[in-house]
């Protein structure tokens, strides 16, 4: 594939989207292609930037139901974008180019538009930058890989595959500030995974409690410096404790 320059949504177009969210949500819902976008904005709503990436394609995946495809798309997205500067990859206007121009059809296929809230929360970063990145239809795919890839494992995507299979295993962590520390996310996911493998069944209702448990550790201890193995052990022990309560 050839190289392309990335684009970002212009300030003007972004402001227009935020101001006319109801209208935009309906247009996305009613249109399977993005030919309406240029009419809506009057001016071309994207601006090319100096950063180059290898061009890439993503496959349509109805409501992300095909987990294997979800994983493949996530890895493709990560590999294509991983070398961009952090301030670009975390900028909502960059993702809006992907949503409204480059991957409109794919984005729309991955999540049913149930109403304005779907567009606000999963396309438009309506709940702030962290939640926007971790909730966004495509941005969350990128961060699932970025936060769990582990070069020290035989299969570096072992943890990525595990969370794509059931996003609840990881979702609750990502809203918390400590999830910016990749070694903590990997350690927590590892602890959860080991416990599930040890017990032999899974109760997804424990995952929000684990996210809170780690926050509690951080209320006294210096969470950032806790080694990956140590947080893994702490989470594993807590998960086993939770499972023992339901066994009894």
């Amino acid at each position, binding site marked *: 594939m050839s190289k392309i320059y990335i684009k970002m949504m212009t300030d003007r177009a972004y402001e227009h989207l935020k101001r006319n969210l109801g209208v935009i949500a309906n247009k996305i819902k009613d249109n399977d292609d993005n030919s309406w976008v240029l009419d809506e904005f009057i001016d071309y709503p994207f601006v090319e930037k100096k950063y180059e990436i290898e061009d890439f394609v993503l496959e349509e995946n109805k409501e992300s139901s095909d987990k294997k495809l979800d994983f493949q798309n996530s890895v493709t997205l990560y590999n294509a974008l991983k070398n961009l500067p952090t301030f670009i990859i975390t900028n909502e206007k960059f993702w809006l180019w992907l949503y409204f121009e480059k991957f409109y059809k794919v984005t729309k296929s991955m999540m049913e538009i149930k109403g304005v809230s779907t567009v606000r929360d999963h396309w438009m970063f309506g709940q702030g930058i962290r939640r926007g990145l971790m909730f966004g239809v495509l941005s969350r795919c990128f961060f699932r890989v970025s936060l769990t890839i582990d070069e020290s494992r035989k299969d570096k995507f072992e943890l990525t595959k595990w969370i794509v299979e059931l996003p609840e295993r990881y979702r609750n962590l990502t809203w918390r500030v400590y999830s*910016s520390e990749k070694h903590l996310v990997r350690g927590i996911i590892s602890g959860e995974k080991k416990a599930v493998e040890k017990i032999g069944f899974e109760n997804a209702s424990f995952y929000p409690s684990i996210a809170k448990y780690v926050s509690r550790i951080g209320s006294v201890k*210096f969470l950032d410096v806790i080694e990956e193995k140590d947080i893994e052990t702490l989470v594993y022990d807590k998960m086993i404790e939770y499972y023992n309560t339901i066994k009894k």
Partner: protein
Amino acid sequence: MQVRSKLFPYPVLNHNIINSSYFNKIFELSFERVDSKNGILLRNIKFKTDSNYILDLFRNGLIGVKCVIECSYTVFRRTYELSTEDGNNILLDKNDFDGKVEISSFAYAKENFILFSDEFSDEYKGMEFEIDKYDLIAINDGFIAKFEHLETEENVAKSIFNITFDNNIEEDGMYEVKYEGGKKINIYLSRNEYQNYKVVYNSVGFKEVFFSMLLVPVLTEAFTTIKKLTELDTFSDIEDICTQYGWFYSIKYRYNQLKNHELTKDDILEWSPIQIAQEILGKPFATSLCNILDVVKNNKEGDSDNE
């Protein structure tokens, strides 16, 4: 990472004396700040303390000290090892940040040990505490650096204003303005008036007319608000204004160019909003008047020719 006034079940040396359980001791970051186009270099970064007890714990390997760099907008968070010696540098790479970046430092336990010192404040004197690995021992909430990726600095109007349309605005000649909560002042027109504006804006010689019609009054109102809030002592400094009104960065930048000195709160208290708005936008009135005059003259000549 900001600990602020959080309480701990054991004595913690906090650089903010009000929250410290040590008597009159400091714990701080020391470095030389070197600004460059790639970011900020914190040269020879190290920690300093006058607590002999904390220094002993560090020298004996019972505690470590780390600097935490965090930017909520780019979800960046990373720690860096510190010592008491020169020779360590941290580069805050501009590519990693946007907006506010918090730089703080913490001492933490590297293993379990008993905390006991005659440096504790009176309420803890003579008491021992069991410390676990990773417990916080000393805190400095540090300082905040700012990073901006301004790309339109050369175009004053574009760097301050964002003009767009709202399908819900009636076509009756009214427009709406929003100053707060964004990097730019947003001006909303009706769809039809936005299309007309685009034609005028892109016509040679009419940009200044548009500046006089729309941008000068909008900026005047914004400056009046900023001046009133400054009079009420709402802002600690110019950076504080920029944090609350992102577009003010461009004003500061342009003002410094025009006046050849750094904008201060005193300047704002003394300025005339309508005058400074005209200056910032390149005094567009005279140019726009001349342009309209040319059009009027051309029309008259056309009328004479027709006669």
